[in-house]
Every structure is written in C-alpha cells, then in structure tokens.
C-alpha cells in the first residue's frame, strides 16, 4: 500500500465510522458527539484525569477518584433501575468471563497505576497537553493492534467461558428492587465515608487566583491534602 492509498483508506474508514453511528439506533451523530463533550468536560472539570489523582489513588494519597466513582455508580444504579422499569432504558450487561475478567483486571490495574490514566481519561489528558499520555495512547493503539491480530488464536481462549450475564436484579427475584436499592445506598455511603485526601499539583494550580485555588479551600476546611511541585 502506498502512502496516498493509506491516507485515502484512513479517510474512507473514518467517514464510515460516522455513517455507522448515524445508521445505528443509539443516538444521532450530533447526540453522541455532545455526550462526549459532557464526558470530557465533567472529567476535566473535576480533574480526575490527572496523574496525581489516579496514580495518587494507587498510592493511597488521593481519594477523589473512588469517592466520585462510587457516588456516580450508587446514584446511577438506583435511578437506572426505575428508568428500566419505566421502559425508558434497558440492560446491556457484559458477560461474566471469569479468567478474562481476572487476568484483564490485574493487567488493567497495573497499567492504570503506572500510566495514571484509564482509556476514558487518557484522551482528555492529551487534550489538555500531556505529551506522555500521547505516547501512552500510541502504546494503546499497538495494544489494540496486537489484541485484534491475535484475538482468535490467543486472547479469546484466554478469556474463557461465559457464565452468563447475571446481575443483582436478575437473581433477586421478588427482592430485586431491595437488592438494587441496598447496593446503591451502600455505594453512596462508601463514597461519603472514604476519607477525603487530595494530592495537588502546583503546576496545575499556578494560573489560578488564590481565592480560586482548591488547596485554599482544603486548608480552610482542615482537610488532608498535600501540594507537590
């Protein structure tokens, strides 16, 4: 394949991507793009895409990520249950492939601690100028290449058998609404109870006025925090 053939193939397949989204029943192209804008905006605004937030959580020096994550899951699980009961949404559960989940989860956790990003927060970091994450994304593309190339002979057998798509709702029977409600409440309580600790990066705060700086608030509220330079 020559270089110009390569470019035209990339362009053709990118426009095919837009057509696929447009022809699916999962929101218009504009809608999906706007969902992305909010996804990027919320994560950026809360600063949970920062290395100090995710690697900081791995070092147990920053707890904003688990607090925000568990709160979001807790609220969503309760409201989503009713959303589905009203017929406004449906379940899309991932299969329980035990060895894939365990091996994949271990690898994912190691990589997330070292990179300080996950696949959703990484691109947002690149959008705010992090070159190291761009290099990580190139590594990720190679990961995607290798996974796709060796999916049938290697990765698929590694993932193992599916044990179905069980949820608390599906096994709960008559008590499913109570199970889901309890699950949601427990997660919300965990989110609130995890002690708040923050690791601030001076380089991230230096353009702010003193009154806008989150470490000023944290000091006033006598919260546990540390500013690194």
């Amino acid at each position, binding site marked *: 394949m020559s270089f110009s053939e390569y470019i035209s193939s990339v362009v053709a397949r990118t426009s095919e991507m837009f057509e696929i989204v447009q022809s699916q029943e999962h929101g218009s192209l504009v809608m999906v793009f706007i*969902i992305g804008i909010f996804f990027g905006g919320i994560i950026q605004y809360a600063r949970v895409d920062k290395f100090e937030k995710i690697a900081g959580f791995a070092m147990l020096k920053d707890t904003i990520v688990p607090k925000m994550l568990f709160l979001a899951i807790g609220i969503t699980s309760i409201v989503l249950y009713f959303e589905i009961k009203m017929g406004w949404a449906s379940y899309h559960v991932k299969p329980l492939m035990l060895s894939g989940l365990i091996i994949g989860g271990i690898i994912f956790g190691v990589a997330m601690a070292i990179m300080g990003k996950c696949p959703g927060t990484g691109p947002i970091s690149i959008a705010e100028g992090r070159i190291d994450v761009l290099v*990580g994304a190139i590594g990720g593309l190679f990961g995607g290449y290798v996974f796709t190339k060796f999916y049938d002979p290697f990765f698929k057998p590694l993932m193992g058998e599916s044990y179905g798509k069980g949820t608390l709702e599906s096994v709960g029977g008559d008590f499913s609404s109570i199970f889901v409600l309890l699950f949601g409440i427990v997660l919300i309580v965990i989110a609130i109870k995890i002690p708040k600790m923050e690791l601030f990066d001076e380089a991230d705060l230096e353009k702010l006025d003193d009154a806008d700086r989150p470490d000023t608030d944290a000091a006033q509220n006598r919260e546990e925090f540390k500013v690194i330079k």
Partner: protein
Amino acid sequence: MKRRLPWWLGGILMALLLLFTFSIFGANRPLGASTYVPYYAGILFGMDPEEYPYLQHVQKAGAWEGVMLLGSLVGGFFTAVFVTKTFRISVLPTGWKTYKNNSVASRLIWSFISGFLLIVGARLAGGCTSGHFLSGMSQTAFSSMIFGGVVLVSLVVTGKFFYNEGESK
C-alpha cells in the same frame, strides 16, 4: 467562578450523564471508552475486517465510542483552556517526579508499556473504568463487580511497589 468541581458534584453530573446515555432519549446504550482503541487501531494499521473477525465484532460499539471520544477531546480541551485553566504542554507529571524519578525517558517508556497493557487488559476483561465500573456496576452486573474488585486490588498493590515515598527529595 469555581475552577474545580467538588467530587460530589462531579459524581452527580456523571450519574446524570450515564442515566441520559442509557435512556432512549439519549443513546439507549451504556457509556464505554475502550472499544474505540482496537477500532482506531484497525483503521490506522489498515487491518481488514474481513481478515480479523474481532474488528467486525467491535465495529458498532467501536464507531460509537470513536465519535464519543472525539467529543470528549473537544470538551476536555475547552474546559482545560477556559474553565480550569490547566492547558499546558508537559511531558513529566509532577507526581512522577516526586514519587518515581526525574527521567523523561523513563516516563515515556513506562507510558508506552502501560498504555499497551491498559488496552490489552481492558479488552481481555471486556471493558474499562467507564464500561465496567461506571456503566456495568450501575446495572449491578456481577461481571463488572468482579472486574472492579480485581482492579482495585491490582491498582493499590502496584501503587505500593512501583512508586516510592518521595520523602528523600
């Protein structure tokens, strides 16, 4: 104007976005953010979906997330520039300097390796922080709870052994 979202407001807004995305008024599907990587890899490495069935398997989800990702780049960029004022070009995270080392080469090599592993791990498990944690656990799925538990342990153990205390500096 506040330059940071408090964690609880971030959590509530993320819940609203998830609920909207799940609903028939939004996208009638969960929010995910790792399937786009093999999809993009297929495009950029010129892999033929006829030859690699996995690409056919992830085509619809990959394209959806691919467009969502483009939106998140735009949303992240404008928020960084105008709201949080955090846009800057940087190579070495401050936390890496404090708790690991001062070497750009070390950071970039580890970034590449961990970026590679991040995607292989996510695809083996069938999802990532968004697809499993946020979307999967919100559906009270057992698969996502197992993934969540394994990742939390693996993350914290790695954090303990990979980084140092940083007090020597």
